């Protein structure tokens, strides 16, 4: 006998889990739209939307990092170094293109060679930190899973 209506069975938990996943992504997309709207349509200063940007950033970082750690499915030893380098380069390229798009197209600023270099000096370490952080989470998650299976 169920002791209380809050003691959910597995099917009810599944329903809530699915609902939470859908609502999480709706909320995340809404936050992204809201932040872009404030930044590029209303042209608000960064103080007025950086809390939203920070929330989105931490959410995405923790979602990917947490997924890599808790699932433990990525075995870094089996991934070729070349693929990791290509992944890193692709990440840098996407970050770079987005930054250029943001300043050139959305904000209409002229970009000089100095800008190109300064963007690169910001994007390279940030991307490296992200990739290393996720790599570490993947490694720890895989080790954790292997220890559980021993």
């Amino acid at each position: 006998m169920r002791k209380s209506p809050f003691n959910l069975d597995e099917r009810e938990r599944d329903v809530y889990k699915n609902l939470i996943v859908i609502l999480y992504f709706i909320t995340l997309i809404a936050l992204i739209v809201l932040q872009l709207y404030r930044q590029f349509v209303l042209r608000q200063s960064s103080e007025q939307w950086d809390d939203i940007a920070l929330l989105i950033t931490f959410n995405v970082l923790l979602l990917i990092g947490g997924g890599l750690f808790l699932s433990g499915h990525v075995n870094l030893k089996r991934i070729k170094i070349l693929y990791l380098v290509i992944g890193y380069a692709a990440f840098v390229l996407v970050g770079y293109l987005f930054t250029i798009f943001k300043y050139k197209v959305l904000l209409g600023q002229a970009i000089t060679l100095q800008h190109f270099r300064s963007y690169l000096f910001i994007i390279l370490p940030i991307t490296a930190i992200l990739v290393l952080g996720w790599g570490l989470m993947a490694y720890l998650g895989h080790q954790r899973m292997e220890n559980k299976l021993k």
Partner: protein
Amino acid sequence: MDKQGNMKLRLARIEKNLNQQELADLVEVTRQTIGLIEKGNYNPTLNLCIKIAKALDRTLDELFWEEE
């Protein structure tokens, strides 16, 4: 699960003189969950399958194995 649902589970429950609510209480789920399993609209976890099999004194094969 076919359109008829899980008839084997339904028959085993009836043979045991249990209604859906009583079986649900035995395996600590809701009546709706048992109803949906019998209708073939919900795939229970292995843990729940084992609980149901034990409650009905049947094996997993007898209740859940689908024959062609």
